[in-house]
């Protein structure tokens, strides 16, 4: 039948270009990158200081913290779940690590591992409860958000943990290149690794299958519970790492570390084309989405917009981004 030929043969030139163009636009990240480029030019025209070295550094620095969590959140969303407790987990892990290295006087490395352990453990608890007891992730992780905030107060008694050992200040103050430190380096490496895992590995493909249709994934022999629980643990651990980087940056175990991050992270990755319904999106997209959100926030500050309007802008952008994404899918992918 003619179909066999269809599969192997190459399309004709004109069509091929058209198809490649469509394929290019259909890549989720391209749209967000284009939008971000436009916004950058816009802010720069209004206020050239927007592209000053100092401002760029400030944006990248903030992005590195939330970005680390966004990586985990993207993996978890691809697996078909999401986590609202990441901000609390970041804060709790930071203060626990701070207490371990001050009050308990443990070596800094041990204390940091302790902090990561707290994050991973909370991820494990979230995962077990969602997967094994069937409690929706929304409820479980919202609950964990409050529990985490309470525990931060319990651990610290409401006071920041200060001063921290010198080693921590060294980590926080390091300047590797362009004034960016370890958190940025970690963020880039983690993003590249996670993007590669989702895109190229069997593990990644199985995450997409799990989030796309759990029953189908189970029937082809994927242990979907393990994948989901694993993704929760990854998010928890990454949130903990982000929290400790902020602590190092501040030089103290503040009680407000991570507060409010959960929504920024979710808004950012969604802007970057990661689906809330599971099974779709990439780490590159999620990271670009976060970057775009931060560009807008910073741009509005630089051009002198009142902070209330900044919040409104973030909300509008998120809804618009998702709307555009739906349109893009309809026209370029469905071809209708």
């Amino acid at each position: 039948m003619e179909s066999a030929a269809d599969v192997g043969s190459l399309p004709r030139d004109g069509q091929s270009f058209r198809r490649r163009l469509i394929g290019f636009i259909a890549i989720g990240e391209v749209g967000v990158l284009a939008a971000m480029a436009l916004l950058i030019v816009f802010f720069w025209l209004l206020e050239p200081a927007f592209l000053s070295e100092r401002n760029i550094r400030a944006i990248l620095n903030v992005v590195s913290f939330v970005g680390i969590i966004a990586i985990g959140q993207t993996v978890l969303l691809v697996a078909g779940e999401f986590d609202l407790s990441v901000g609390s987990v970041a804060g709790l892990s930071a203060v626990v690590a701070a207490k371990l290295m001050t009050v308990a006087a443990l070596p800094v490395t041990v204390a940091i591992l302790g902090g990561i352990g707290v994050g991973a453990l909370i991820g494990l608890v979230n995962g077990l409860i969602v997967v094994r007891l069937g409690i929706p992730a929304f409820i479980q992780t919202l609950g964990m958000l409050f529990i985490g905030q309470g525990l931060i107060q319990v651990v610290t008694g409401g006071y920041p943990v200060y001063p921290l050992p010198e080693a921590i200040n060294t980590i926080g103050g390091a300047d590797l290149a362009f004034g960016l430190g370890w958190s940025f380096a970690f963020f880039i490496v983690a993003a590249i690794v996670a993007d590669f895992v989702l895109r190229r590995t069997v593990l990644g493909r199985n995450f997409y299958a799990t989030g796309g249709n759990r029953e189908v994934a189970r029937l082809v022999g994927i242990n979907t519970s393990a994948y989901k629980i694993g993704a929760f643990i990854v998010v928890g651990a990454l949130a903990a790492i982000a929290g400790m980087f902020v602590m190092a940056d501040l030089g103290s175990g503040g009680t407000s570390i991570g507060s409010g991050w959960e929504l920024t992270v979710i808004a950012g990755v969604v802007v970057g084309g990661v689906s809330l319904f599971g099974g779709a999106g990439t780490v590159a997209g999620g990271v670009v989405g976060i970057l775009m959100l931060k560009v807008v926030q910073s741009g509005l500050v630089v051009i002198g917009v009142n902070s209330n309007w900044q919040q409104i802008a973030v909300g509008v952008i998120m809804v618009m981004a998702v709307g555009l994404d739906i349109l893009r899918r309809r026209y370029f992918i469905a071809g209708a």
Partner: protein
Amino acid sequence: MSNAAQEPLLSAIAIAKSFGGVQALRGVDFDVVPGEIHALLGQNGAGKSTLVKILNGVHPAGSYSGAIKLDGRPVSFASPAAARSNGVGYVPQEIEVLEQLSVAENVFAGRTGLGDGALVHQRKLEQRAGEIFADLGIGIDPRAYVASLTSAQRHLVMIARAIVMKPRVLMLDEPTASLSGTEVDALFAVLRRLKTQGVAMIYITHRLPEVLAICDRATVLRDGQVAVRIAREDFDAETFIFSMSGQRLQRLFPEHTAPAGAPTALEVRNLTVAGHSGAVHGAKDINLSVAAGEIVGLAGLLGSGRSEILHGIYGRVPAEGEIRVAGDPVAIGSPGNARAAGIALLTEDRKRDGLLFNLPVGANITIGNLAPLSRRGVVRGGLERSSILAAMRALNVKASSPQASVSHLSGGNQQKLLFARVLMRAPKVLLLDEPTKGVDAATRHEIYRLVVDLAEKGVGLLIVASELEELIGLCDRCLVVADGRIVDEFGRGEGGEDRVLRSVTAAQAERHASQVSP
């Protein structure tokens, strides 16, 4: 024919439609007259579903070219709801139900004016749904949740949903693909009655005997064009097949005899699968064995427990009992174990538990089969692509590329894609649940050929198919299942459809008697 002289109720004029680069329809003229059942035939991907989707607003006005006339007046439907309010009803090919609602609520979904104002009379809904089911001969409790129904039952719910609105034009896109004999008979009785009431019907099917049984006229589509229109006087299965595919099929079922003295491929002892709510009854104390190279069929009615037996063996549902593959015991209860032991399962409902709509065609084929296509956990892109192309070519999957979206494949091509997925691991035991559901005659022939080839290579096959003729023609041995038990068994040439029906009826009568006098 008296019908042909009548004015058409619904007509399509020069309909053309393309999806991106794919031209699905190229200028199709088509019409139905009142009181007629008009068969719309064609191979997978010929454009049948696309045509009926245009005729009832799923593809809205503006997305295609050409005109639609209802009662001779031009109409354009912006949505299925608009078509419905003009008396055009539709049963889609793929199951679309609201899982979280009851059967009755599904039947009346999207309808208003059933109670006082915005309120709905639950009891009235259930009662009316019950009446329709009685009509259709369907034994489904209107209060059951759709989530608990099998896919054949879901299909019946969709049919009831279309009929309950008393349409003037009714389009049925492969309504019988998952139904077995008795349900088909009940459906036909209803269609015949609608016919006497003057309803115009468009009937899409790949089961040619059904066309011979019930249709008045046939239009054959080929590559998006009308290949031929055939009047009832000239109906003939061979003519249909030839005009659809341009091929003449020699024999419907390829020759096969089970090898004598072959080792056992699959051995099942005392398998019990718990039934759950609704109409899924489970299976009790199943003992069966399939030799290497043998094709065994499970015959029975809807809800008799055939699929549950396959699911139990594959570990999809909790089950108890003993399973051996080539003599080695298999730890029962997880698809992972079953797969590791060399068992593969082709599921019945493509949309619900077959396809991954978030992944493209290629990844849908390789999912779960990536181990040999990767090195240290990293997928080898070139190798994956070439094995995808090989699998697509072997099974003749018609898709523009491995990157194409699965939701745009025609039904039969989706089925072949799933076949490609289960065959990629070269299983020792293959469990097939409705392997030819929605597949055209030529492809069906290819699948029969494939099944026999696999058997000749020593695979043991256990097949569930609702079309008894198919099951009996294909299988070396048939097991008849009723109420979750095996009630009869016969080899090739030892019985036909009547034997299956007789043993099912006998088993039911026996059960009835034992219930009456405990």
